[in-house]
C-alpha cells in the first residue's frame, strides 16, 4: 500500500537482528575481536551507501520470502555462521519483536521513533569504526528527509502496510511471555490504561458548541480506563530524545530467549487442515515482487563483495542454550515445515567468484516442495 515501508521494515528488523547477535556473541563468549568484526561487517553491509539509496526509492514491500532471504544473507555477511535452526529462531525473534513494537505504537508516526531507537543503538555498535559510523549517519539523513515531514495519514498507511506484513504471525517468545506482554495464543497484550497519543485528549467528555462556536456545555461519560495525556512527542533529530522505549535493546539483561511456534503438538485434524489451507493461500498471495529480485541481487553482490575472508576464521553461532537444543529444534522444523527449510552450509571452501562463493553457502533441501516461490534462489543459481 505505502511505497515507503521497505526502509522502515528493513532497518528495524536489522536492528533487532543486531541486538540478538550482540547478546548471543557475548553469551557464547566469542572473543571480543571476532565479535566486533561480526558486528562491524554486518552493520557495514546493511548500511552500504548504494544499497541504502536503492532501498529508499519508492517501491512495494518485499514478500515475506524475499525479506527472509535478504536477512539470511545479511546474517552471513561476516565470519559467523548460523545453521538453519538458529537462523529460523533468529528471524522469528526479529520479526515478532518488530511486530510487537508496531502493534504497540500509540500513534502511527511512532514507527519512525522506533526506527530511530534502533538507529541509535546501531550507531553505538559501530561507534569505533569511523567509516561505518559515516554510513550510519548518512541513513539518519535519508530517514529524516523521507519521513520527518509525513502526515499522520501517511504514517498510518505505512503502519498498516507493516501490520499486513506481520499478519497471522503468532510465534510465542519467552521474553514476551515472561514479561506478560504476550498471551499464550501469541497475541500481544494491549494496555487499556496509560498515556493517550501525543496531541490527542483523554476520552470521557462530550462538548457542545453554540452558534458562536463557543463551548456551551460539557457532559461526561465513564470509560473505565485510567488514561493520561502524553508528556511530549519524540524527536526525529539526529541526537533527539525519542521518548518512547519501543525499539530499544531488550536483551541487555542476560536472559535466555525462546520461541515456541504457535501451533503446538495436539492439533485436531480439522484445524491442521484449515491451517494448511491457510498456508497454501498465504503463499499464493505472497508472490515475490519482481522489483525485490533486482535489489536482492544488489544485496547479494554487496554481501558477496565483502566475503573474502579465510574459511578457518569462521565460527558458528548458536541461538539456543546448548547444541543439543539446537539439533532438536532442527529436527523439529524439518518435520513441521520441510518446504521452508533452507540449509546453510558453511563447510564449503570454494573461493571463486563472489557470487559463486555466496551460493556455496546456500543450498536448498526438500527440493520436492520447490515451487515458484523459490525463484529468488534459482536466480542465484543462474548467476
Amino acid at each position, binding site marked *: 500500500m505505502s511505497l*515507503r515501508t521497505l526502509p522502515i521494515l528493513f532497518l528495524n528488523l536489522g536492528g533487532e537482528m543486531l541486538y540478538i547477535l550482540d547478546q548471543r556473541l557475548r553469551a557464547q563468549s566469542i572473543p571480543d575481536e571476532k565479535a566486533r568484526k561480526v558486528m562491524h561487517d554486518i552493520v557495514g553491509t546493511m548500511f552500504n551507501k548504494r544499497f541504502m539509496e536503492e532501498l529508499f526509492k519508492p517501491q512495494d514491500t518485499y514478500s515475506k520470502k524475499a525479506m527472509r532471504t535478504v536477512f539470511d544473507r545479511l546474517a552471513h555477511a561476516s565470519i559467523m555462521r548460523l545453521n538453519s535452526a538458529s537462523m529460523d529462531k533468529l528471524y522469528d525473534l526479529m520479526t515478532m519483536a518488530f511486530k510487537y513494537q508496531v502493534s504497540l505504537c500509540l500513534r502511527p508516526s511512532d514507527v519512525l521513533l522506533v526506527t530511530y531507537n534502533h538507529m541509535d543503538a546501531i550507531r553505538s555498535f559501530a561507534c569505533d569504526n569511523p567509516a561505518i559510523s559515516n554510513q550510519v549517519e548518512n541513513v539518519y539523513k535519508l530517514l529524516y528527509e523521507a519521513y520527518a515531514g509525513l502526515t499522520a*495519514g501517511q504514517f498510518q498507511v505505512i503502519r498498516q502496510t507493516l501490520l*499486513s506484513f506481520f499478519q497471522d504471525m503468532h510465534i510465542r517468545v519467552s521474553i514476551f511471555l515472561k514479561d506478560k506482554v504476550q498471551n499464550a495464543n501469541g497475541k500481544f497484550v*494491549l494496555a487499556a490504561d496509560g498515556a493517550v497519543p501525543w496531541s490527542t485528549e483523554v476520552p470521557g467528555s462530550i462538548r457542545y458548541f453554540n452558534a458562536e462556536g463557543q463551548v456551551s456545555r460539557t457532559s461526561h461519560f465513564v470509560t473505565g480506563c485510567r488514561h493520561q495525556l502524553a508528556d511530549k512527542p519524540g524527536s526525529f533529530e539526529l541526537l533527539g530524545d525519542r521518548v518512547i522505549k519501543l525499539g530499544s535493546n531488550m536483551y541487555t539483561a542476560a536472559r535466555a530467549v525462546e520461541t515456541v511456534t504457535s501451533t503446538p503438538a495436539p492439533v485436531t485434524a480439522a484445524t491442521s487442515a484449515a491451517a494448511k489451507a491457510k498456508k497454501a493461500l498465504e503463499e499464493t498471495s505472497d508472490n515475490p515482487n519482481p522489483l525485490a529480485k533486482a535489489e536482492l541481487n544488489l544485496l547479494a553482490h554487496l554481501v558477496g563483495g565483502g566475503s573474502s575472508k579465510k574459511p578457518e576464521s569462521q565460527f558458528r553461532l548458536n541461538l539456543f542454550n546448548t547444541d543439543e537444543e539446537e539439533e532438536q529444534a532442527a529436527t523439529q522444523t524439518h518435520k513441521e515445515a520441510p518446504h521452508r527449510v533452507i540449509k546453510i552450509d558453511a563447510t564449503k571452501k570454494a573461493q571463486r567468484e563472489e557470487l559463486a562463493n555466496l551460493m556455496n553457502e546456500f543450498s536448498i533441501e526438500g527440493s520436492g516442495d520447490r515451487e515458484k516461490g523459490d525463484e529468488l534462489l534459482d536466480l542465484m543459481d543462474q548467476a
Partner: protein
Amino acid sequence: MFARDTSVSVKASASSLCNNLTVLSSKEKESTTYGVVHKAFVCITNVTKGAVVNQKQVSCKGEGAHSSSSVLQAKWCELPERTVLVITSVKGAQMFETDGSIMIFWQALAESKEGVYSHFARGISAVGDKYICVGTSEGGIMVFDIPPRGTAVKLQETLTSHKVAICELEAQGGRMVSTDEEGNIILWQSGGHFTEIIKIDGKGFPCSSVCFYKDFIIGGFATGHIRVFSAATGALCIEACAHGRWISAMDISVDSGLLVSASEDSFVRVWKLSADDSPTMEMVFQQAIIDAQLCGARFVDLSGNSFGVTGYDMGEIIIFSKQQAIP
C-alpha cells in the same frame, strides 16, 4: 443494552485497515453477508438462518492487477436497481455483481507520480439512484454512472477538490460527504454534475470514517474524536473525546439514532443521538475486545438491533445484539 452474540468465523484474518467490514442484509431471506478484507482479497461469508452457508474469496482482477495487489476497502453499494460489490486496491477500483462472482467493471489508477508516498483507491459509496463514487490517494473522487444492468459503467467525472488522499465517502440520498487524510470534509450534491455545497476544514488529522444522521455529518477522527457538524452550515455542534486511539470505523442506524464507533484502543462504543431541536449525544454501551485493534464496525440490520466488529489479526466477526427485554 447490547451483549455478545455468537461470532461469525471468517476464513482469513482481517487486515489492519479502516472501515474493514461491510455487511449486506436481506430480511426476507433471513440472510446476512459479511465482507472482510484480508491482504489481497475479500473474504465473503454468508450466514442464513444462523448458519454459515457459504464462504468465498474475491480478489483483484484485471489488467495490471496481480495476486499481491493489496486491497484497501470493500463495500456493498446498494442502488435501487442493483447492489454492487466494490473493491478498491493499490491498482484501482473493481465492481462485482452482488455475490462477487462476476466482475462488472475495472478502473485502473493512473500511473503514480514521481515521489509519492502511496498509491491506492479508498473510499466507496453509492450516491443517489445511479452513482457509485470511489476516492483515490491523490484526492480525486471518481464518479461512476452505473446502468441498471450490464457492464456499461461509465466514468462520468472526477472531483478534485480534495488535495490529499480520500479516507471515506458516505451518502444520504443524493447528497455525498467525502473526507480526507487532513480531516477536511466536503458535502456534495449529486445530479448532472456533482456540486460542492459545504467544505469543513480539517485540523491535519485524518477523518477516517463518516456518517450522515438527519441533517448532521458525523466524523470519526484519528485523534479519537467524534465530531458532529451541521450539514446545513458546516458548524461544529458536538465534539466527543470518544476513544484513546485512532477511530477506525463508525456506522449509524438512522432508525434508532444509534452510532457505533470502533477504535484501535480495542473499545467499541455505541452512542445515542437525538436531533429534535439541537443535537445531543450520549454513550449508551461500551465494551473492550481484549487485545484487539479494532478495524471495522457495522450494524447488521437497519433497526440497530445488532452490529458486527472486526479486529486486526482476528479470524472472526464479533457480533453484539440487543438483549431481550426481561418480561
